[in-house]
Each structure stands twice: as structure tokens, then as C-alpha cells.
């Protein structure tokens, strides 16, 4: 995304102009919905979370500091945290009421790539799954490398090298131009 657009959106946000929300939704809505979906694995809940996240984004606009993070990083943090809070509240409720083991934030592995999300995941087929899993642990599950090593039963050194390669591949294969192209297909 262009930095110019980012700047424009930030200006509108801080002027409390609600056009900012429309622009944010057009450019980041699908991606943020994907983020919420990754955490919750439930489209309906993800949509609720997206709504709550946008309200938070609107209310917290003053606290965004462009020198500390890119706009997307800030949006991602808010959406992911809102989704995690939602998941926790559902888990607590479920534990109390039905005692069903709901997969939690740190549940990871083959499970996280489910058939119902394959239409999304297929865009990632240019990156080997072993790298995808590590990237997923880092970006979505918020694991430390040590935690990923423990959880996935992979030596720490391997995690480190896979992460390095995964990040490099990601940037090489899906540079900004490629991303725009892919988003156009989705859209």
C-alpha cells in the first residue's frame, strides 16, 4: 500500500473525519477480517471482532504514532488483541457452561490449516508448509521462538533458520506488487 494513502488515512483519523473508516475498511477490511478469522476460526465471530476493532481504531486514533509503527502494524495489533480477548471470553464461558475443549490461541499445527480455509490458504502454496507453520506461529499465534520449538517439537535452531528462510521467501515471492495482484483476484 502506498505510504501516501496511509498518511491520508491517518490525517483523516486524527481529524476525527469518519471518511477515514470507509477508507480503512476498503484497504484493510478483508485483511483484518482474515486476522480475526485466523485467531477465532469462526467467520461470524470474526465479523463481530472486526466491528469491535474498528470502533477501537476510531476511539484510539489519537494514540497512533506513525514514527513507532506502520499503520497496518497498529491495525493488526488492535484486531488481533480484540480477537484474542473474544476467544478468551468464549473459552471461559464454554468451560463453565458446556465443558467443551475449545482450541485456544496457542493451539497450532496441522489443525490450523483447515479445509474450510483452503480457498484462502491456497495463495500461500508458493511457500513450503514447514515455513508457513513457523510464520503462522510468529505472526498469528504470537509465540516466541522457544515456545514454537516446544509446541511444534522442532529444535530451536531449526525454528530460527526456518523463520529466516520463511521471511525471505515471503518477501521474495509476494512482494508488494504481487500482493496487490492477489488482492485483486480475491476482490
Amino acid at each position, binding site marked *: *500500500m502506498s505510504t501516501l494513502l496511509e498518511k491520508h488515512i491517518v490525517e483523516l483519523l486524527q481529524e*476525527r473525519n*469518519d471518511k477515514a*473508516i*470507509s477508507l480503512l*475498511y*476498503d484497504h484493510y*477490511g*478483508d*485483511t*483484518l*477480517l*482474515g*486476522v480475526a*478469522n*485466523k485467531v477465532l476460526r469462526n*467467520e461470524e465471530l*470474526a*465479523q463481530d471482532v*472486526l*466491528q469491535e476493532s*474498528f*470502533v477501537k481504531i*476510531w*476511539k484510539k486514533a489519537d494514540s497512533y504514532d506513525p514514527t*513507532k*509503527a*506502520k499503520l*497496518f*502494524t497498529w491495525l*493488526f*495489533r488492535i484486531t*488481533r*488483541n480484540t480477537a484474542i480477548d473474544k476467544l478468551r471470553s468464549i473459552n471461559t464461558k464454554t468451560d463453565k457452561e458446556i465443558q467443551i475443549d475449545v482450541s485456544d490461541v496457542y493451539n497450532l499445527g496441522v489443525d490450523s490449516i483447515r479445509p474450510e480455509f483452503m480457498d*484462502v*490458504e491456497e*495463495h*500461500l502454496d508458493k511457500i513450503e508448509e514447514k515455513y508457513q507453520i513457523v*510464520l503462522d506461529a*510468529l*505472526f*498469528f499465534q*504470537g509465540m*516466541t*521462538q*522457544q515456545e514454537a520449538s516446544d509446541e511444534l517439537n522442532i529444535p530451536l535452531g531449526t525454528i*530460527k533458520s526456518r523463520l529466516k528462510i520463511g*521471511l525471505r521467501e*515471503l*518477501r521474495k515471492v*509476494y*512482494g*508488494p506488487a504481487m*500482493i496487490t495482484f*492477489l*488482492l485483486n483476484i*480475491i*476482490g
Partner: protein
Amino acid sequence: MKEKIKIFLDSDLLEKYLLGNTTEIESLKVEQYIAMYPEVRETYNELQESLEIFAKLHAVKSPEGLKEKITARIRSEHQGRKRFFRYAIAASFAAVMFAGASFFFWNQNQDLQEENTVVSNKIKLLEADMKQQLEDVRNQFIVLNNPSTKKYNVKGNQKAKELKAVAYINPVKKLSYINVKKLPHLPEDQCYQMWAEVNGEMLNLGIIEEGGDGQNLMALPYAENAVGYITIEPKGGNQNPTVDNIVANIAY
């Protein structure tokens, strides 16, 4: 220094910071490293880009109507806020007005209370004064009207031949008065003062006002064998009588 950066990058702090999972202290440390070391800054920026790329690869097409739902909700919150501010301004204004009015009335009340105190004090003083005067007049009347009251004519000596006064003494009621009828004129810096010698002590009875209407009775302390004196003293009166300046005496 290289080692320090390597250790920092090897730790997960930068990744935790990226996702907003760091504590406040950790965030400060990360922000310091980002500001100080270009290598760290570059890694952080690459991570941010990778995050955006990776997240976009997981984008989910949002359903129809969700955008409208979200924008409508935010617009209504925005309106609510605006309305809240409008009410807040109105409420603040009303509060200021109320405070102003309260202060004005409080102030006025305070002034009136003060005035009230002054007036009631004045009334009390007047009352006391009146009672005193009435008491004086009654005593005078008793003395003057009493059959056992004796009247003495007092005349001035060589120094004040014109002085004429009348003293009334009542040994039964133990009250005495003097009425100074006529006083010779004195220079500006002098005055007449009344004294009484009671049991060997000189008591100051006060200054006799010149030019009075000749109707003023002065009370004299009563004692057996008391002597009253009138002296000429410097203006304003004296602590002790100037014996040389005695112009009249009344033995009673």
C-alpha cells in the same frame, strides 16, 4: 556493539513488540534499539512488511453490508460524542452561571449580616446610654427633691472671681452633685477640671465644659468630710491637680 545487537535480534523482543505483546519497559528498550541501531531498524521494518504481506495472504472477503454496519455504528458513536459535548458545554455554562449567582447572593448576604450587626450594636449602645441617662436624671431628681438635701453656693477665689456654682449634697442618700453656673473665660490652652478629695485621695472627676447651658449636673463621689476642688489645668486635663491653680473648693 555488534554482539549486543546480535543478542537483541536473537531474543524475541522485536517480534513481541511487533505484535504489541511487550511490557512497557520492554517497549522502551525496543524503541531505544530501533532508534539507535540501523540494523535493528531495518529488521523491524522488514518484519512489519512481512507481517502485512503474510496477513494479506490470509485475507477473507468480507460479507456484503458489514462495511455499512461498521460505518453506521461509528457515525452514531461520533454523533453521540458530539451531542455529549454539546450537553457538556451547556451544562458547564449553567454551572458557571449558577456559581456566579450563588457567589453574588452569598456576598450580598454577608454584607447585610455585617450591617445588621452594626445596627443592632448601635441600638444596644443607645439603649444602655438611655438607661444610664435616665438613671442619672432619676438620681438627680431624688437628690434635688429630697428634703434632707443641702444646697451650697460655691464662689471662686481671687483667681476666678466670677465662678459661681451650686452643690447639692444629700448625706442620707449619700449622693452629691455640683452645677457649675458660670465660669470665667480661659485662654485656649487651659480648662477647668473637677476633683474630689475622698479619704485623702485625689480623684479626677473630669473636665468642666465651658460655655455649657449652666444646667449640667456633675455627680460627685460622696464621702464624709470630702472636699471638692475646681482647678485650672492645661487643655485636655491633668493627671493630678495643680494645687496653685485651685479656683474653688467645696467642703461637704
